[in-house]
């Protein structure tokens, strides 16, 4: 479980995170939603330890990030996987080499075991073996995202973070990616935290949904509660579009 307590983060005069308390439970897809500029990405990067906090604590199964030594932080990092918004695959490496890189650095495995693990992870995200030797530039956006997921899970992490995994993808591919993340989370019992704008993701895989507004947690609940909620923050954000207004009306009627 990841526990976030009262975190604050500023960049110069700009106070981006203004005291957020939230728990992310294992085996759940925790979705963070909110308008652009609400602080979602800064929040995610702060939880990952990429931004130093001004105030507050983040603990991973009781291990407080700011109180750990360098070696402990390094060990913790090997329990984390991250899927970046733009995939962040290394252009100079092939697909297989991208996925293999964390193993080369941190796994005490034989070469054959590493090859097997890379093959398993890539096949798990439905990448065909004939694409293993391609470079990221030769793949579509959806395939790049799937390779990024394979790289994120190759060390069998306890915590998976995804920053807008559906951005720039067509609706069909977006659903595939959502389902993949959901399946992996439940299959491996990971604690998954996802930043998203995609309301379809919320309704597909949102075991736990957090709505952020101006650097604070404005609301939290489950995907069912999103549709039932009369909270003004949720209504303003989620039910802006006609599609969701109609869906909500139909559900209420039913």
């Amino acid at each position, binding site marked *: 479980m990841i526990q976030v307590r009262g975190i604050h983060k500023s960049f110069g005069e700009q106070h981006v995170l203004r005291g957020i308390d939230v728990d992310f439970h294992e085996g759940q897809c925790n979705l963070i939603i909110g308008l652009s500029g609400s602080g979602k990405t800064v929040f995610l*990067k702060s939880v990952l330890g*990429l931004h130093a906090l001004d105030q507050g604590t983040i603990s991973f199964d009781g291990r407080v990030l700011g109180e750990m030594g360098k070696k402990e932080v390094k060990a913790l*990092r090997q329990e*984390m996987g991250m899927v*970046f918004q733009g995939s*962040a695959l*290394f252009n100079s490496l092939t697909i297989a080499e991208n996925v293999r890189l964390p193993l*080369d*650095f941190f796994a005490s495995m034989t070469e054959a075991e590493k090859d097997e693990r890379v093959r398993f992870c890539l096949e798990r995200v439905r990448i065909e073996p004939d694409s293993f030797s391609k470079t990221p530039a030769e793949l579509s956006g959806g395939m790049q995202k799937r390779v990024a997921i394979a790289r994120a899970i190759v060390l069998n992490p306890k915590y998976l973070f995804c920053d807008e995994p559906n951005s720039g993808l067509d609706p069909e591919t977006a659903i595939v990616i959502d389902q993949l993340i959901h399946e992996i989370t439940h299959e491996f019992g990971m604690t998954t935290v996802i930043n998203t704008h995609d309301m379809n993701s919320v309704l597909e895989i949102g075991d736990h949904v957090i709505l952020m507004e101006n650097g604070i947690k404005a609301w939290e609940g489950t995907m069912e509660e999103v549709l039932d909620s009369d909270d003004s923050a949720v209504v303003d954000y989620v039910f802006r579009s006609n599609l969701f207004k109609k869906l909500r009306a139909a559900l209420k009627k039913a």
Partner: protein
Amino acid sequence: MGAVAFLSGTTGTCGCENEEKEAGANPGYFCPHKAPNLAYFRGMIYRFLDGLGHYFRFLGEVFHKPEHGREYLKSFFREIELLGFSSIALVAFISVFMGAVLTIQTAINLDDPFVPDSYIAIAVREGIVLEFAPTIVSLILAGKVGSNIASTLGTMRVTEQMDALRVMGINPASYLVLPKLFACLLFNPILIVFSMALGLVGGYYAGDLLNLVNTEVFLSGYFIEFNPFYIVYSLTKATVFAFIIATVSAYFGYNVEGGAVEVGKASTKSVVAMSFTIILFNYILTDLLLQ
């Protein structure tokens, strides 16, 4: 009155909103609307020292002890190919023509029956070994290799590839820069020796093809009173310039903030900074080693 205002840094205050906005956040800021005064030069020195401090902190990160030597070694061989072998053709082309031009210019300027052709060869040899091969070729490599390093690292920064490495627990400064640095340190002196050899060959053939010199006398001139220390001097310069090329360009690329436009700007800035630094160190090393 004007001098007092200059020294106190108050001349030409424009009072625009940029000046007010930046004053608190950026102590080295100087509004471009104002005429240069002491505050302007103070700001320049402040920014320079601030940048220098950041550069040395960056070097501290780069020289952090690598924990997975094998991965660094793999990366090192990739960089040798990318930064070293790919420069051979360019260096060969420039060196041959540089030697040829040097022979033509020297032969025309020393066109005197009392000056033997071996003197022309000596002038060409010293020019190539002492200055053209180590300095000019390094300046050209600063443009080719340096801008490549800056734009590669800058692109990795803006596409979050460096964040991806940090999340994995890999030090991006060390993993990305150290192999490039060692590739440059190893390959730059090799390229310089290669450039010297081709420069001398180019000089010889230019003299022969254009009938500017007696080739036998000219060739013997290449070996007259040669001081082997000049090779040491030249290779010392090549090594120092390789360090400058790799680290200065990496510093600019590594610290890019923004998008594609900023990557381009960082690449340009790095080439300018490398050129200045190489020229400055060329003077310092010449003064130290040849005096």
